[in-house]
């Protein structure tokens, strides 16, 4: 217990004694009486695929999972529609389908202003500012808002004072208000406010240009073996010109030896070619001597000679001094004090560096292994310190690394790399084995009073061919373009002729009708919409790949049929369930219009799950007998709550999943 927690507890406890008097003694905490309380341990393993799990269990590399499976505690777990992580984890957290929690895709749109935004988080800068010379002083606070609706299961539990520890669960940034110890996961930005933007300093131009999603290339000059450059920080909103804050650094390289020294804010780091630094704490000055933003980053010397190549991780929010709300109850600071700096950004594996050719497969895998080591270190210690309530721990590695490296298990994949190192070829196998070791550690903590649940939000499928859904809508007469010749250029939807557009695609699986009185320039009469929706569904399900005649779409779903809850009206009108091997292209996701309807996937992000949910179920394992044959993510929140003999809220899915709780 941290000192401040201790003081707080003593203070609150004293006040409680004063106020409640005898009541306190009428029901003393279980820990005073020696009475055992139920515990629930949940391992959230993003992207664990049931087919791969069975395969590796059969190969004999996952003996601990085998024990659980042999005891009958294994089912495929129904994922969300669509099977995207923010949607799926929101189902799990709230016990509702997307109609109940309002998260339908990674990306949503405001139908009036038509600006796409990240579905789980709203950022509102201060609305009133005054200018003093070059400086702008906010008169009210800005706001970062969690857009997921519905009560989280740990909020329900705390009504009965059941403590929870929730480590990096997705769709929880900023962390929902709670007495539980939580730290946010997927959705947590870096200090730039992005999902993670790495920096790459080099004196050789990259063929992809200097700027791409997830990274920025800084051309540098090497003069007398010395490089001067800057780390780019957050935009300084206090300054009138709104420029980013920067930190200068210098790198010296030896004339011959493959070694580089980096000096940043008085810290000196000496690295050989191919080496990573530890976490380095940096501070961006926003107002001199008054306001600083603290961040952490790691340096990687990719090459010293003949060309200088230096990679810097996205600058993560410093958990010891977070500039944005990433945890509740000071949990981030507590973790930083115990374990030092660690990745706080939602997606720590740098998939963009691999996609854009900055990392090789081997370099990506090294970075990814570091993420897992760091995560497992925290896991081991936090698990050891867990004694009551709920312990939820999230592992991102299988998901992110399957996106990038699952192709190594598939020699028929066009992006299979036969020259990759054995380490990379075995990467996925290694990850599943690591999860087995995590399970072994967990089992050591499991007693008769503990319910263990292991779940994944979805499985995985190959991603061979990318479907340009936006162009398909153009070709089929639903989206109209102002200039049909100008397709793959410009900003979001700026080439769309809204006066002639009946439907448009946005996000990974969504199609919206350009509906009157809903969209800013809607033309479709609400009475006509069902007909158009049905027509699109029908046509999508018949779409075939001209290269091989295979169906591209396995299923298309209508929101009004698939969802229930208070937010169904915000849902996309059609949800597209791609067949395995296919997915929407990245360009089509944000309203661009490539010239063709379908093409080969060339990005190393080459496996995916944002397809038809029936093709990518997750896994569910427990030490208790699973009585349901087809459990789904949204059934688990109520199941957790019932482990403490509490009634879940009425609007939660309350299907019986596990055998009844016997012990208290």
């Amino acid at each position: 217990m941290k000192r401040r927690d201790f003081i707080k507890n003593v203070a609150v406890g004293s006040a409680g004694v004063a106020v409640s008097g005898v009541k306190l003694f009428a029901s003393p905490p279980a820990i005073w009486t020696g009475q055992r309380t139920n515990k629930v341990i949940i391992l959230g393993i993003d992207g664990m695929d049931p087919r791969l799990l069975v395969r590796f269990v059969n190969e004999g590399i996952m003996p601990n999972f085998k024990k659980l499976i042999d005891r009958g505690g294994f089912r495929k777990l129904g994922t969300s529609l669509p099977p995207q992580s923010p949607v799926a984890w929101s189902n799990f957290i709230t016990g509702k389908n997307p109609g109940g929690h309002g998260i339908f895709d990674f990306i949503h749109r405001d139908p009036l202003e038509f600006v796409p935004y990240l579905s789980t988080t709203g950022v509102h800068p201060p609305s009133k500012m005054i200018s003093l010379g070059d400086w702008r002083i906010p008169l009210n606070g800005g706001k970062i808002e969690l857009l997921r609706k519905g009560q989280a299961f740990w909020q329900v539990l705390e009504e009965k004072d059941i403590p929870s520890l929730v480590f990096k669960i997705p769709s929880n940034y900023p962390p929902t208000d709670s007495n539980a110890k939580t730290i946010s996961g997927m959705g947590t930005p870096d200090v730039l406010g992005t999902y993670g933007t790495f920096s790459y300093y080099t004196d050789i131009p990259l063929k992809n240009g200097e700027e791409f999603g997830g990274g920025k290339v800084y051309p540098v000059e090497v003069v007398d073996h010395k490089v001067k450059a800057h780390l780019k920080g957050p935009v300084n909103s206090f300054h009138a010109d709104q420029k980013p804050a920067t930190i200068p650094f210098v790198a010296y390289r030896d004339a011959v030896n493959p070694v580089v020294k980096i000096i940043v804010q008085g810290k000196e780091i000496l690295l050989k070619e191919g080496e990573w630094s530890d976490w380095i704490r940096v501070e961006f000055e926003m107002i001199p001597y008054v306001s600083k933003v603290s961040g952490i980053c790691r340096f990687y010397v990719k090459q010293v000679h003949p060309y200088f190549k230096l990679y810097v991780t996205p600058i993560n929010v410093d958990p010891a001094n977070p500039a944005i709300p990433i945890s509740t109850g000071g949990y981030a600071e507590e973790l930083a004090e115990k374990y030092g700096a660690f990745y706080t950004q939602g997606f720590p594996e740098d998939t963009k560096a691999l996609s854009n050719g900055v990392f090789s497969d081997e370099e990506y895998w090294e970075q990814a292994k570091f993420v897992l080591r760091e995560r497992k270190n925290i896991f081991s210690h936090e698990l050891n310190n867990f004694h009551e309530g709920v312990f939820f721990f999230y592992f991102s590695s299988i998901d992110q690394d399957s996106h990038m490296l699952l192709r190594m298990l598939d020699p028929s994949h066009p992006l299979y790399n036969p020259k990759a190192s054995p380490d990379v070829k075995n990467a996925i196998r290694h990850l599943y084995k690591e999860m087995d070791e995590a399970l072994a550690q967990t089992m050591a903590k499991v007693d008769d009073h503990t319910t263990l649940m292991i779940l994944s939000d979805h499985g995985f499928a190959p991603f061979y061919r990318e479907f340009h859904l936006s162009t398909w809508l153009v070709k089929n007469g639903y989206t109209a373009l102002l200039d049909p010749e100008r397709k793959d250029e410009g900003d979001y939807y700026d080439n769309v002729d809204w006066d002639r557009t009946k439907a448009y695609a946005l996000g990974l699986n969504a199609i919206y009708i350009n509906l009157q009185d809903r969209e800013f320039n809607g033309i479709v009469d609400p009475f006509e919409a069902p007909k158009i929706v049905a027509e699109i569904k029908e046509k999508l399900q018949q779409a075939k790949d001209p290269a091989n005649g295979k169906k591209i779409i396995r299923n298309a779903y209508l929101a009004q049929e698939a969802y229930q809850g208070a937010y169904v009206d915000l849902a996309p009108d059609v949800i597209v369930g791609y067949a395995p091997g296919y997915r929407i292209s990245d360009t089509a996701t944000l309203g661009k219009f490539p010239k063709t309807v379908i093409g080969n996937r060339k990005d190393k992000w080459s496996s995916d799950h944002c397809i038809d949910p029936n093709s990518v179920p997750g896994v569910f394992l427990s030490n208790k007998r699973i009585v349901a044959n087809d459990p789904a993510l949204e059934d688990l929140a109520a199941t957790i709550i019932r482990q403490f003999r509490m009634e879940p809220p009425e609007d939660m899915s309350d299907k019986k999943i596990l055998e009844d709780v016997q012990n208290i």
Partner: protein
Amino acid sequence: MVFVLKVINFFFQIIFYPLKFVPEIWALIIVSVVTGIVMLVVFRHTSNQKAIKKTKDRIKAHILELVLYKDNFKIIFKAIGSIFRYNGRYLRQTIIPLVIVFIPVILILIQLNYRYQFRSFYPGERTLVKVKLNGETSENFDKIKFLNSPNYRIETPALRISGASELDWRVQILNAGKFDLIFENGGDTIKKAVNRTDRISVLSPKRQKFSFAEYLFCPTEKPIAENKLIKSIEILYPHKRMNVFGFNVHWLVVFFVVSLIAAFGLKGVFHVEI
């Protein structure tokens, strides 16, 4: 002058010796309290105590005037002027004693600095070793050899910065205890002491050729001989943060807070007018 510095260092080594056996936070608190007392005693004997008391009494009287005659602007302005005048007098009366007080305080701070500024290494920890050579050319770089030892492992080849005549290496510290970093230059061996201990001890980051100021602030190692090619050898010790009742603070904060509390708290005991 070196002799004087050696005597001062020896004196402080004797003073600090018993504190090796006390937890470091308590050792710092003890030193801070003693410093507070030393400040009091020195101040008392170097200041005109009667005059200071008289000046302070005048200031108090004029402050009372402000309270009593708050409706009379003439008296208030006069009182404010008098308060400023007597404050100036107070500063004049205390400035020389304070300067004298600061001489032992600075010496104590220097001694505390190389005991509390840095912490020693954990086994396995990595750090940088920097060697600076005479002159500004790179022609002598190859004449310096950094030798491995069972106490540390050299992890990188030398990084040579010609403009600064500097060679850098990264080393991993392997063992506890005192040991030397060993360099070779044309048959000569030059060493730099490293101390890896959990107790309060003198940690000197730099060994260099003699200069009074440097020797004053880094007085624990014999200067490098003037005729050597190596000008200085530096090892980057990690900075120490002190854990004071759950808070990580810089040792200077502890020192100033405790010594000032001690000085003000004990001024009555020692009959000192501050």
